[in-house]
């Protein structure tokens, strides 16, 4: 449903309606946790309006599973991303206003070798959204070459999901070397890996960001 909406179809965007579910159905709430901020990707990337029930669904997911103290950086950032997306669809404001809670830590982006950094970032690709300033995006902005190397590594290993996630971050990051050939790489990843809806989602999101940046 999310991929369909990103491709320009599926109007109006209605996540719950598409699965004939209720916003308090535990299975649906858990599924939204997996999508993270991308539950609203059609809204944050294509300007679609969410239904009230979908907003309630994401609110429920955010409230039901707050990250525990000492949670991994990945789950803390995923939670942060959902709150930011929720804030954005409620208010239309580009940036997050997340109150007094401290932001999750970003030190690993600078300290991890490029291989592990890319792997972890690809799991947080839902936060790679144009016009969404975040401490995470600011940390990524300092390592565009290393992220590009991780993208090459993932494509060489045919790890399409990791490559798609890395490609999405590259699409919203300045300073990516031109010789990387990102657009051709995204096309290849889609061609080879889009049978996995998660790959299709990341590639389409990356391409929308690229189109927005060039036009």
């Amino acid at each position, binding site marked *: 449903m999310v991929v369909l909406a990103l491709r320009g179809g599926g109007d109006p965007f209605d996540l719950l309606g598409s699965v004939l579910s209720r916003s308090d159905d535990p299975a649906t709430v858990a599924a939204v946790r997996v999508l993270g901020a991308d539950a609203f990707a059609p809204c944050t990337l294509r300007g679609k309006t969410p239904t009230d029930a979908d907003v309630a669904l994401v609110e429920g997911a955010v409230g039901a599973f707050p990250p525990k103290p000492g949670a991994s950086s990945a789950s803390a950032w995923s939670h942060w991303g959902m709150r930011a997306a929720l804030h954005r669809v409620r208010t239309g404001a580009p940036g997050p206003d997340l109150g007094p809670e401290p932001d999750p830590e970003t030190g690993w982006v600078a300290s991890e*070798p490029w291989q592990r950094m890319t792997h972890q970032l690809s799991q947080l690709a839902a936060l790679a959204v144009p016009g969404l300033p975040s401490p995470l995006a600011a940390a990524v902005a300092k390592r565009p070459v290393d992220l590009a190397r991780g993208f090459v*590594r993932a494509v060489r290993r045919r790890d399409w999901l990791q490559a798609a996630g890395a490609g999405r971050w590259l699409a919203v990051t300045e300073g990516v070397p031109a010789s990387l*050939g990102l657009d051709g790489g995204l096309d*290849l990843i889609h061609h080879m890996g889009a049978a996995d809806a998660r790959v299709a989602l990341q590639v389409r999101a990356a391409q929308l960001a690229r189109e927005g940046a060039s036009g």
Partner: protein
Amino acid sequence: MTSRPSSSPTSPPPPGPLATSAPPISPQLLHRVGAGALEWLAANRTHFRARTDASTSALEIGERFKPIGELAVIGKVLFREGVAGSQQSAIIRKLLDYAWREVLDGGELLAWLQRREPLSPIPLELYVPFQELGYRNQEVEGRARLARGLTSWTALEMAPNRRLGLARVEIRAGLPPSIEVAEAARRTWLGRTPEPWTAVYHIAYDVTHTVFHLTDWGEHPEALPTDIADYLELWLPVWIEDWASVEHWDLLGELLVVDACLPRPTLDPAAWQLYAAAQQPDGAMPVQRTLPPGDPADTFDLAYHPTLVAAFASVMATSRAMTALTVPQP
């Protein structure tokens, strides 16, 4: 393509920041790989030799030119770099003497091939490293000049990186190049600086050979055009990790040579540790993973190339590591 501004070959920039936080590689480890490889090559030198009795087919003789050529090219590098120590220098000199006198019969084997195939570039490619070290054969030189005068010689169809190599060989032999080096470089895969994620196995070898030819086998790292050096600085770390992870020591060795040819070599400690650990106790380097069991006579054809490359990578990296130790950091 623009050439890198000529910096003195004796004072290249020091190695750049390492991709990982591992401590820098020790010159001793780099040196040990080369010393072991050289011992194995010297101990097994007779296997380079082509059988040339009356019953030997031309095809069989022809097949021996590849290892002999690689021995000549890399033997010249080892001799030139002179960082291997005086004991190693003596071993290299004896190995090259043996290759010239016994394997190539003082150049007669090259003249034999020229008579059979006047347009073959192989005799000149093999001859030039020996010529530069003072080994001469007038017949080989005369026939090479004759062939170079033909349009057919310059029109011969060959892979772009081979054509580039031949242009460098012609220049080194004192002959006019069949094609301008910059133009020949532009026609190679690497010269186009394509998408780095498309570099499969055979392309990776095209890349290494383009660098070998452009730098005269590491003798002139400053001859690497700036755009190519910049491109390699970006993507070589990925390829090194890629081929180290599948334990392809032959290709990894060539990529480590390329690294040592860059303005800011990384001398990647993790890759070098893996590479050194892959070497057999007798000094032989496997092509990939490990060598099949057997004595050197059985495994020579598998082992000689990766072992020559190991000696090559070792001297190049040792040379750069020593430079980094002696040149103060900016």
